[in-house]
């Protein structure tokens, strides 16, 4: 779920930080730069683990600050494909489930990866019901849901949507809470694609997610010769192997998703 990433970064240390010890100042700068952001293909940065090396400071002509090359490690949230993670239900609708880890909420379980058989109950709110050996188990917010990571995607930032969305969110944030101005993404961030998670949540309508995990809850009875009970200790637990029955359902999905299914064929 978590791993370390070794990164080298050249950063300008503003002169107002000169009174701090160098590694404290650099750590603060790195945290402001990376924390709670998604780096494309690297994951969501949780924390700065350690700073391994700080190069000699360099002052560019005409610049009133020193620039350092820093080698450091970040704790990244980047699950591997096939990992099983415990999550809570956030939303459910006709397209499947949306799960949340508390700090990361862009986990989707599409319909074709839902436990099989299961059906959608539209009354009173959309909720999924998993049928298992004649019994039905409603999937609701109370139980812990363990899902298997099927794929992780890092969608690129949509250019045309960015312009109308970001000024308005900054504008809204300015009046009630000055700290949310800080949250808005400054234009001169890193070249890597990154976006604040918290900033995302403020946008209500179909927020752009820089990192999307597709989870699988696919339970196939065929894999379970012993007929073991799927519920244990109050937690919703399912067997997760992409098998023939799920592929039948997957015919409706796009070609790329079928390719994913075939790719992960056991």
């Amino acid at each position, binding site marked *: 779920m978590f791993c370390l990433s070794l*990164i080298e970064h050249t950063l300008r240390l503003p002169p107002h930080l000169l009174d701090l010890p160098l590694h404290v100042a650099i750590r603060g700068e790195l945290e402001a730069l990376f924390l709670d952001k998604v780096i494309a293909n690297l994951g969501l940065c949780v924390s700065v683990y350690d700073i391994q090396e700080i190069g000699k400071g360099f002052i560019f002509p005409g610049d009133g600050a020193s620039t350092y090359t820093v080698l450091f490690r970040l704790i990244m949230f980047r699950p591997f494909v096939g990992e099983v993670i415990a999550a809570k239900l956030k939303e459910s609708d006709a397209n499947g489930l949306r799960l949340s880890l508390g700090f990361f909420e862009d986990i989707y379980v599409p319909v074709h990866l839902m436990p099989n058989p299961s059906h959608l109950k539209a009354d009173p709110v959309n909720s999924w019901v998993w049928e298992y050996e004649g019994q039905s188990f409603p999937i609701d917010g109370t139980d812990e849901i363990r899902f298997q990571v099927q794929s992780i995607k890092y969608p690129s930032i949509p250019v045309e949507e960015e312009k109308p969305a970001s000024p308005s969110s900054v504008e809204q944030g300015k009046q009630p809470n000055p700290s949310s101005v800080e949250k808005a993404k400054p234009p001169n961030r890193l070249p890597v694609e990154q976006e604040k998670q918290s900033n995302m949540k403020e946008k209500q309508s179909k927020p752009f997610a820089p990192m999307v995990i597709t989870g699988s809850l696919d339970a196939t009875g065929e894999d379970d010769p012993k007929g073991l009970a799927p519920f*244990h*200790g109050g937690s919703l637990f399912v067997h997760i192997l992409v098998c023939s029955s799920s592929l039948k359902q997957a015919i409706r999905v796009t070609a790329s998703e079928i390719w994913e299914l075939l790719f992960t064929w056991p």
Partner: protein
Amino acid sequence: MSCRKKANASPLTNFEVLDFLRSRGAAKDPTRVIVSVAPSEVKVFDYLEQSVACNQTRESVAEFLKKSEKYKLVKAEILNIINIRPSSVVDIDPLIDDCEGRLGESIEELVELVAEVFPAPAQLQADEGANEDGEEIPDGKQVDTS
């Protein structure tokens, strides 16, 4: 300018991340006003504190690594077992590839080992666990910059 020297320097267990956040002082202040950790780190801490990692210790993880050697599990499977703490055969089956074929009867043994090495998490034990854990970070070398 940022460049990745090594994208996957080493995987961490949930426990290691929790231990790191505790050592940063995430657990010390219940009001969360003075703490030096960022709000995003506190969210991760909250998630981990409610997970089974809350009462694992460095010793118990090391003990499990040693005792699970004979089952010839791959690293990802061991990582998953430590993070999930499967308490029954049903729980452990999806974590291990070809569980029946590779482990056969010894799977029960492995489940017992997990239950024995990692005590069942209880909400009350969470605070206790925080006090027991060492403050040091595993090979987290801070560079002396003087």
